[in-house]
């Protein structure tokens, strides 16, 4: 099978710091967390526990959003939310 050649340095050296943001892990997701803004009390526990820093806080309003480019769907935020403001649904492929 012929594949497009990746541009890679010998030894897998990465010369561009912070380039891991280019690697979007959102497509790993099986379950999608969904935040109900009406129920959210802005306690930011979800933001604290997210292992992928995929919960974003909007500076002006203080509202929280899931960054679906990076959210792997682990649902730790769902388990953590004290007011059950985060629901889940199966990711549609």
């Amino acid at each position, binding site marked *: 099978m012929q594949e497009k*050649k*990746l541009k*890679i*340095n*010998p*030894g*897998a*050296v*990465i*010369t*561009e*710091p912070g380039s891991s943001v280019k690697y979007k892990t959102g497509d790993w997701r099986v379950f999608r967390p969904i935040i109900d803004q009406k129920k959210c009390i802005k306690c930011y526990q979800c933001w604290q526990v997210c292992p992928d820093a995929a919960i974003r806080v909007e500076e002006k309003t203080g509202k929280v959003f899931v960054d679906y480019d990076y959210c792997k769907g682990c649902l730790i935020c769902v388990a953590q939310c004290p007011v059950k403001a985060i629901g889940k649904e199966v990711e549609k492929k």
Partner: protein
Amino acid sequence: MAKTVVEASHAVAEAVKLCKVEVCPMYPITPSTHIPETISEFVADGELKSAMINVESEHSAASAVVGAAAAGSRTFTATSSQGLALMFEILPITSGMRLPTVMAVANRALSAPISIWNDHSDAVSARDQGWIQLWVESSQEALDSVIQGYKISEDRKVQLPVMVCFDGFTLTHVFEPVDIPSQQKVDSFLPKFRASHVLDPKKPLTMGPIGFPNSFMHFKEQQQEAMINSIDVIKKANKEFGTAFGRKYGSGLVDLYKMGDAEYAVMGMGTLCGTARVAVDKLRKQGKKAGLIKLRSLRPFPKKELQSAIKNLNALAVIDRHISLGQEGPLFTDVRSAVYCNDITINSYIAGLGGRDITIKHFEKAFADLEAGKQKGEWLF
């Protein structure tokens, strides 16, 4: 040319000094111990400006080599047997990260039963881990191969670690006349190490990241490519060494002895080749067309050179100083695979395990089997 009478261990340490190695993480183990001993003397006496790190295990020695090489230093360590086994985890990391370094392996049997004596089971077991392996026959070759080793390892087309494998006790503790070249000559043969990427806080980069399934195979493909590139680089280093120092070792990959008109030959690695030369000479005096193929580079394995070396032979005996238990001698497997298209009888002999002597008589027996057309795979005790 004045020669000094030293052990191979001392000769290797002299090579480390001549190569101006900057970092030497060392953990002593028999029979490689005289190497760190001698290097530490050089450092203490101010003859070698090097960071000699007394680490707590071979695993740490290999890991410190990785760190220092990543920071752009020329590095060296030495080990044997169980020490190499403890380093095993770091072997594919060193080669996978494409870090140039040279390690001297004073070959010793792996336990159990405990044996401090020579065979090739330690380094041959590590052959698939992406290290170039040069196997040497004499103290002089050990010294020269360390110098050549850095030249090969640091070549941008290669960038792979090199193991210089030499027989425990048979070389490490045996005194031989050795020409220790001048610093000036070595400096002009071996330029200062310039790593392709260096860990530096001013210019951050990542080494040793995760390789996902979409990229991992491409890195392995690159490593294989570098190994194949190293075939020409090893030959070139050996040739240039010959011009600069007045001695070389066959083509760098294989060293052929009386193979021009040979009908029967033996093949092996390390000091057993010295004994084989004497056996070949003895048989030649009897009018028999005997020859020797000394394999110097086990990895990369020189298939083409081997094919051309054996093309006029009637039969070949491969002597393995190691056995892949449940299969056969690994050198025999490699040889047969390289020449499977050739119409030739190849016999396999397992010999010299755990310090058992390999004598002229063993070679005479192997040659007699070849001449009698016996197809054999057996142990020589």
